[in-house]
């Protein structure tokens, strides 16, 4: 069992997403960086569907009541076990009654903690992913107890590890396709959008990453239409917004670009100030 001593800025349970309910207005949710989440699970031998902890910017402090194997992935996270620094991107054995402190990351925004065997938590509408008004909690709180599905059995020899995913973090180009309303933009604007430097605004969150930029872009509103994570919206006033995992299922702003699945993972790890361009 894990007890939450300090939940960190915004720590949730996430998995691959809540599929099958978008026509009920229920967002997909799921890990912001699916690639990092996949790696964390793989490192402890979990299936990719296993739910794990997601934290952002500043992670949680956890009391590890029973021994367990975990892995942390995502950014270059600064993690201490009973006050001593431990490595990320590899399986780690946590002894019973130890304290894990996940601090900040040098590079990257979202981090993941997988536990071998996964958590004993309820599935709601087919997924473990936290979402307000769907799951009981929208985020972890001080005092929460997370029970594990598998009770720890034997010491595991750690030899596996993965190289830090430099490519994910250093990429300055995000791969996109044209969105349904791309053709409605003027030729100049179509060219300009690929020559503009963007960076996530400080208001970025699991629902959307509004982008900061200096170009003069604008597009008319549209009749409410389907959208998805990775959809780049352009508003009449020139705001450029990339919808993320908790985004609403429909929207009334022009859909000018659509990020590739990997590009969404990459964008999730960009911090305000990290500049990038779109690449078609």
């Amino acid at each position: 069992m894990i007890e939450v001593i300090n939940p960190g800025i915004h720590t949730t349970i996430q998995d691959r997403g809540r599929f099958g309910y978008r026509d009920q207005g229920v967002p997909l949710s799921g890990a912001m960086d699916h690639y990092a989440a996949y790696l964390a699970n793989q490192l402890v031998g979990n299936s990719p569907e296993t739910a794990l902890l997601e934290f952002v910017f500043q992670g949680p402090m956890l009391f590890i009541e029973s021994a367990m194997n975990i892995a942390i992935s995502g950014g270059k996270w600064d993690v201490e076990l009973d006050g001593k620094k431990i490595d990320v991107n590899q399986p780690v054995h946590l002894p019973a009654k130890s304290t894990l402190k996940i601090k900040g990351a040098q590079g990257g925004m979202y981090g993941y903690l997988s536990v071998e065997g996964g958590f004993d938590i309820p599935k709601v509408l087919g997924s473990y992913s936290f979402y307000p008004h769907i799951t009981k909690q929208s985020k972890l709180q001080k005092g929460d107890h997370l029970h594990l599905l598998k009770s720890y059995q034997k010491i595991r020899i750690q030899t596996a590890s993965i190289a830090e995913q430099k490519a994910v973090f250093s990429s300055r180009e995000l791969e996109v396709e044209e969105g349904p309303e791309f053709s409605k933009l003027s030729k100049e604007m179509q060219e300009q959008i690929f020559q503009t430097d963007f960076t996530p605004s400080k208001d970025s969150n699991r629902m959307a990453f509004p982008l900061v930029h200096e170009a003069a872009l604008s597009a008319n509103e549209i009749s409410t239409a389907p959208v998805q994570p990775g959809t780049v919206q352009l508003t009449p006033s020139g705001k450029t917004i990339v919808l993320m995992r908790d985004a609403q299922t429909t929207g009334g702003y022009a859909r000018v670009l659509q990020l590739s699945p990997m590009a969404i993972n990459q964008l999730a790890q960009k911090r305000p100030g990290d500049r990038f361009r779109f690449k078609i």
Partner: protein
Amino acid sequence: MKSNVQIVLMGHQCLLIQWAKAEDDDVLKTLHFLEKEYAQEILEMVPTFREIALFLHQKADKKKLLEKLKKQLPIEEENDSLRKLPTYCLPVCYEEEKGLDLSRIAEEKKISIQELIRLHTEPTYSIHFLGFLPGFPYLSGLDKQLHHPRLREPRNRIPAGSVGIANDQTGVYPHASPGGWNIIGRTPLSLFNINHTPPALLQAGSKLQFFSIDHKEYEEIQEAVQQQDYQIQKVYD
């Protein structure tokens, strides 16, 4: 394929059907057809007023499906099952305490509150799709006299069940949320329940009619809803 409808790519394993102008049943007929014919390929679909997004399974052949659909759309055949969808009757308490903008709207439109209620409860609205929030219905059919611009400053918190008007749209907030709609009443019903199948009370393709209740009936229905003892009234043609 006729030029009124087209189908385009919309990202990884996603196709988008778009109508330049959708007639009443176009979207619904197409949804039913796709559900029947392509259940293997399609993970889920999201309809809106004039579009349907098709989200395909990872292993589905997107290009192949695109070519097939280009030949099969538009769907012309009538679908009898469409006529079997009910009209939901949604109780609404149109009283001051629950309709924060009720008097103001009536005053600005120079009509009585009774007249406002009559104009809102008379039409049979079409439920086109759900979006914005889990269970939130996009309706058409609001009387022109009730069209009204959004609040200039949205409220931080609109209570769950609030019935509102924004421009030419009327709808119901399934749960508490910030919002800029003009609130004219509140329903004691729950529009979304994770323990129900499907979880949203109102479904695309069905119709909706509001009916007026007083605060006493509101409390009684609210109690019944909490006891899981309330069945929404449905009218079939």
